[in-house]
C-alpha cells in the first residue's frame, strides 16, 4: 500500500475500512498502523464528509406502502406464499420460478422480516432474493 493509494482509497470510499475494497483493506490497515500520523491526516478529511453523509437517513416504508404493493400482487402469487416457502425450503427454487409464484416472491421481499421470524434464524426470514446475492468480492 503506497501513500498515494491510501489517499485514493479514502477519496473514493471514505474513511471507514469496511467500505474499502476487500482486496486492499488489509494493506490499508497495515499502512494505518505503520504510518499513523500520515494516515490520520488523510482520514480526518474523509471522515468529516462521511459523518455528514451519515446524517441523511431515510424513513422506512410505511405499512400503507407495503400493503399497496402486496395488494397489487397477482392473486395467484399471493395465495401461493406458503407454497413458495415450501419450494424454497426444499431447494426447488434453483429450478426457476413458476409464474404463479411471482407474487409470492415479491411479498417475501416487501414484508417485514419480523412478521415471519428473526432474520438470523433462517426459516421464514429467507427470501427468494437471497438466492441472487452478489458473489464475494475478489
Amino acid at each position: 500500500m503506497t501513500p498515494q493509494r491510501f489517499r485514493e482509497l479514502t477519496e473514493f470510499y471514505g474513511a471507514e475500512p469496511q467500505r474499502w475494497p476487500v482486496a486492499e483493506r488489509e494493506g490499508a490497515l497495515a499502512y494505518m498502523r505503520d504510518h499513523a500520523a500520515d494516515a490520520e491526516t488523510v482520514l480526518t478529511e474523509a471522515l468529516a464528509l462521511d459523518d455528514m453523509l451519515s446524517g441523511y437517513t431515510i424513513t422506512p416504508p410505511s405499512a400503507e406502502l407495503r400493503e399497496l404493493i402486496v395488494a397489487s400482487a397477482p392473486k395467484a402469487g399471493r395465495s401461493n406464499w406458503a407454497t413458495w416457502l415450501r419450494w424454497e425450503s426444499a431447494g426447488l427454487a434453483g429450478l426457476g420460478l413458476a409464474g404463479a409464484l411471482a407474487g409470492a416472491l415479491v411479498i417475501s421481499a416487501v414484508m417485514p422480516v419480523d412478521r415471519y421470524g428473526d432474520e438470523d434464524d433462517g426459516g421464514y426470514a429467507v427470501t427468494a432474493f437471497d438466492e441472487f446475492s452478489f458473489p464475494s468480492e475478489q
Partner: protein
Amino acid sequence: MRKLPRLLALATRMLADRIEAEDVAQETFLRIWREAPHWQFGQARFDAWLYRVALNLCYDRLRQRREKHMAEPPDQVDPGPAPDHALDQEADRQRIAAALGSLPERQREAVVLQYYQELSNIEAAEVMSVSVEALESLLARARRNLRAYLKGDA
C-alpha cells in the same frame, strides 16, 4: 432480506422526493412481477437487475423533470419524523439531500450505491455497467463536489 426499504432509500436519495420514490418502489415491484416468471436462479444477477430497474425508473423521472423545466428541488425531501428535539437532525438531512441533488446524476448514483446502499466497488460498478476504475473516478469527483457544496453551504 428486505428489499423494499433499500429500494425506497435508493429512490429517495436519487430523486430527493419521497412521493416519487414510493412510486418508483411500487413500479419496481410491478416489474419484478412481470419478469419473475422468466428468471432462472443462478443465471442472472438479480440484485444488479433490481437496482438497475429502480435506477432507470429514477432516471425516467429525472428526465421528465428536466423536460418540464422543474429545476427547483421539492420543498419536502422526506416527510420523516421531526419532533422538536430532532429539528437539527432534520435540517442536516435536508442539507445533505440538497448536496446530493446538486451532483451530476452518475456521480449521485455512484455515491448512493457505494455509500448508502453499501455495495462493494465491484457490485456498484456492475450495476452501473462501468469499470471499477470508472466508478472510483465518479466517487472521487462526487465526494469532492459534495465537500465543496457543503463547505459553501455551511
